[in-house]
């Protein structure tokens, strides 16, 4: 964990969630400090995507508490749109708005949510598109871009809101292999710039390179929550060992 940090940016305490009688999240607790990069991994169906969607209130949870930047996500009086505007999220399937151009995708929420002027929003959008190397594509529609390009636009769109933290939900798992790196490069840069990040991914190379901590989930539980060095080095639970051996030596 980076040094000299104040209280956690994201704190998850005893969160449980059920679909009917099926428990998808079982008493999950962890925290992400400001500037920290936490990778969440685990087999499919382990609840990792559900957990990260709970962080900005896209998925409701029945028990426990999640506090983001001092605001309780599940609180009855919480202004969820306002909270979400401060937390960027990137999805597995990009979820760019197909009926809008790249630039419109980047400016919509800036104007409607943050109340920026059109010009300010376009300026910001232009800078971010340059940052992800897509300035030339500003007037294209998402369908005209490759998957990797779309995901980079999605990252730029999330950054356009000046978020205090970024959530990534399997950002590379819908991509063709040759496009994974262009997205990871953007994420690595973001991590190096000090962004607080919670990343659901199986990209262990990314975890080794920039993560501070790795969380391993299975069957709705947080089984491991270790500093990166310990996760990849020291002995750990059998389930995590099995999982790592599967995804590292295939």
């Amino acid at each position: 964990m980076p040094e000299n940090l104040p209280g956690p940016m994201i704190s998850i305490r005893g969160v449980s969630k059920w679909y009917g009688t099926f428990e998808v999240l079982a008493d999950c607790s962890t925290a992400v400090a400001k500037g920290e990069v936490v990778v969440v991994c685990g087999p499919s169906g382990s609840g990792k995507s559900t957990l990260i969607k709970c962080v900005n209130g896209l998925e409701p949870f029945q028990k426990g508490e999640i506090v983001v930047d001092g605001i309780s996500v599940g609180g009855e009086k919480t202004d969820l749109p306002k909270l979400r505007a401060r937390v960027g999220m990137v999805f597995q399937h990009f979820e760019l708005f197909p009926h809008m151009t790249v630039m419109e995708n980047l400016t919509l929420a800036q104007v409607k949510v943050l109340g920026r002027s059109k010009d300010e929003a376009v300026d910001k959008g232009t800078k971010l598109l340059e940052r992800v190397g897509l300035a030339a594509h500003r007037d294209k529609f998402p369908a005209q871009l490759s998957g990797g390009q779309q995901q980079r636009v999605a990252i730029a769109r999330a950054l356009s809101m000046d978020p205090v933290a970024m959530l990534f939900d399997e950002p590379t798992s819908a991509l063709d292999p040759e496009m994974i790196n262009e997205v990871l490069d953007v994420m690595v840069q973001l991590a190096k710039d000090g962004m607080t990040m919670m990343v659901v991914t199986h990209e262990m190379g990314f975890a080794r390179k920039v993560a501070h901590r790795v969380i391993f989930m299975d069957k709705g539980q947080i089984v491991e929550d270790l500093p990166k060095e310990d996760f990849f080095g020291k002995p750990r639970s059998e389930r995590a060992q099995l999982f790592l051996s599967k995804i590292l030596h295939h």
Partner: protein
Amino acid sequence: MGGFDWEVIETSLPYLFKVGMVFTVTLTVLSMAGGIFFGTVLAMMRLSRFRTLAALAGGYVNLMRSIPLVLVIFWFFFLVPYIGAWILHEDRPHPLGPFYSALITFTMFEAAYYCEIMRAGIQSIPRGQVWSGYALGLDYWQTMGHIVLPQAFRNMLPVLLTQTIILFQDTSLVYVISATDFLGAASKVANRDYRLVEMYSFVAVVYFVISFGLSTLVRRLQARIAVVR
């Protein structure tokens, strides 16, 4: 009886189109606009997580779709004046005239059908689109207005237009309240001059040409506007 009398058609053309067709087209276009608006509201209610709203909209749609249109036209024609009087605190029924009565009827009736189309359209939008709208801090109305409805509307445009073509034909039922739509106008000429074969044949041809022409356009449009995902 004599042969097919082309002249009666020719001489009544201005009346048929300037009075009858104008009524029909105005009624169709306004009912479509109103129907799509209320239909969209109903669709959002039906998909709402508030059970009462969903049940209300569902009940309304099922009611409208289970009653013959002619009956609804009658019903509104005779009932609306009483409702009007009740709202305006007048002693006597407040007649609206055939046009406004028909407009209200068709808007309310078609809203039920447009509702089901818009509901399918809204449901066709992947959940992730809503999530990404919310994740950016947009609220329900902004997400609906900027992300879900524009896409739903575009996806459903061919079906909405096809429903409108049906509406265009159905407006001819206003003859039961003696409104002078296209069919009503032709019917008046037919009865006055006793030229039923000529007038009703001509009316059929005009309805066919317009409806078939529009259907063809809709099919072309369908091929062009499909949103590439």
